[in-house]
């Protein structure tokens, strides 16, 4: 009984904590409903931008998964996104295969590339991983440009096959991207409560405690990286299908950094709303502020600094709050 007295504020804390997810659920449902009927109301350019926005939201989410579950930061996720995108494009161009086959292959490629990158780097500390991911992102354009026979070099490749023949192109691109994003968010919500998800969260906070329960660091690093790379590759496949073109220009070090910007701005959330915020910021800001193009890096850079500094002072404030005294 003495112990339960110590936790007596539970009622006060628990009820608002329950009310907030409920509100969020409704908001998410509302957003999905609006997005689902939008194609009937709006022009094709908006639909095109939104499809890209959904695809980028998945890429942002893949970085958020890495940060949230792995405590690692990557600025080279453009590599895995490009891998997915080029898998779809190359399979159509050279093998004549459509998305039904190339999408699963793209996922497998992302998974394999994630493993390939994570296994040698499984013992690196976080900063080295960030440096290695930068090298990954910088090596990508030269690989794409000089493997011209497959990748189409500077020009890139076009994707023209439909997912569902006979259905309007803009519509199927839009709904495919939206469906992919929603499915990923649902899967990630389920993952949070799974054995693996909880093990990763423990390993992130206390690697040694996790080890004492059989969760090794290398398992955690490899799992979270493979998962994140698979998601990034999926996002690439969606980008390729939604924009119907791939070229090295879309996958530079800057794209990798922008995915991180999206992730930081969405506070590494893995919910639909967070992913939409992140994807929206990195897709729509450059599109609608085209005149202010040169200001975009400054805007993004300031966003990174502001969010980081605020989050830092936030945790400082939390420490000062009463109620946690020893």
């Amino acid at each position, binding site marked *: 009984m003495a112990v339960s007295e110590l936790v007596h504020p539970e009622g006060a804390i628990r009820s608002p904590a329950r009310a907030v997810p409920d509100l969020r659920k409704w908001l998410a449902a509302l957003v999905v409903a609006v997005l689902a009927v939008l194609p009937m109301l709006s022009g094709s350019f908006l639909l095109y931008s939104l499809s890209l926005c959904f695809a980028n939201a998945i890429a942002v989410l893949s970085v958020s998964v890495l940060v949230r579950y792995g405590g690692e930061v990557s600025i080279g996720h453009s590599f895995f996104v490009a891998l997915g995108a080029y898998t779809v494009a190359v399979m159509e161009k050279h093998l004549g295969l459509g998305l039904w086959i190339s999408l699963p292959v793209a996922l497998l490629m992302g998974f394999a590339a994630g493993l390939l990158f994570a296994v040698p780097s499984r013992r690196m500390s976080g900063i080295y991983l960030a440096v290695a991911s930068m090298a990954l992102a910088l090596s990508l354009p030269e690989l794409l440009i000089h493997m011209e026979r497959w990748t189409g070099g500077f020009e890139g490749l076009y994707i023209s096959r439909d997912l569902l023949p006979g259905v309007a192109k803009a519509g199927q691109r839009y709904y495919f991207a939206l469906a992919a994003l929603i499915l990923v968010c649902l899967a990630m919500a389920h*993952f949070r409560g799974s054995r693996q*998800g909880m*093990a990763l969260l423990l390993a992130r906070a206390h690697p040694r405690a996790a080890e004492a329960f059989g969760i090794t660091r290398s398992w955690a690093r490899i799992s979270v990286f493979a998962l994140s790379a698979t998601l990034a590759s999926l996002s690439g496949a969606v980008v390729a299908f939604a924009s119907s073109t791939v070229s090295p220009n879309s996958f530079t070090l800057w794209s990798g950094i922008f995915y991180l910007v999206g992730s930081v701005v969405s506070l590494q959330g893995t919910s639909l709303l967070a992913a939409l915020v992140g994807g929206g910021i990195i897709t729509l800001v450059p599109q609608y502020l085209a005149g202010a193009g040169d200001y975009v890096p400054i805007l993004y850079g300031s966003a990174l600094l502001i969010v980081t500094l605020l989050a830092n002072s936030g945790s400082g404030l939390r420490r000062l709050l009463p109620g946690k005294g020893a």
Partner: protein
Amino acid sequence: MAIIHAEAAPETRGALVASGINLSFGGIDVLKGVDLDLRPGLVTGLIGPNGAGKTSLFNCLTGLYHPNRGRIALGDTALDVLSPARRAGLGMVRSFQHMALSPDLTLLENVMTGLTLSRRSGWGSAFLPMPRGRAETQDARRRAMAALDELGIAGAADLAPPELPPGTQRLGEIARALVGGPKVLLLDEPAAGLNAVETRDLTRALRRVMHPALIMVVVEHDMDLIMQLCDQIYVLNFGKVIACGSPEAVQADPEVLRVYLGAGDE
């Protein structure tokens, strides 16, 4: 001081036995030929002044350090080179001196991570709500809740650890360690950071969860906890066991008195 070997009697089956443990760091001997015999059903305390080597010995048991010489075995299984994760697979769990619960998980979910090794659900059910994975999660949740209940903190199940007082967090860590039904529970200064009331609750809770098949080992400075909780106590000084026996016997041992009082004089 008599050393009883594992083979000596049938009730020692499944005992955690360390013999002739030597450990040195950079030429400095931290442990010099330590022998331990930890039987199921007994709570063993490791005490000694600062720098006596009790934390090093504890870390040899958990697998963080590997002794330069000597053997450690759990039952018939040699542990010498096994990593902490592999030892966890054999049913050896531990708690940490500094709170080591994930702030991103609720207390209940933290306890569920203690079942990670015994759960079989694959990556498919990590992303999709498959019936088998669901049933397993339900079962894990039930067992974790039972463990919390046994320690008297079921009311805090849905709260995040940072919202909880240190005493509750510590009990949560112990629930996480116990939920998988371990053979050995190693406690690293469980009373660190707790006030007197919390320490008293902790001592009671630990006595309550003790059962005849469990080996419990405690490293602790708090003498009240040690004396109330332990069935046998090893006293270390300068890397050697200087006394071993029941709390009463150890308290009366002249060598122990000299070490503790002597240490106080300096």
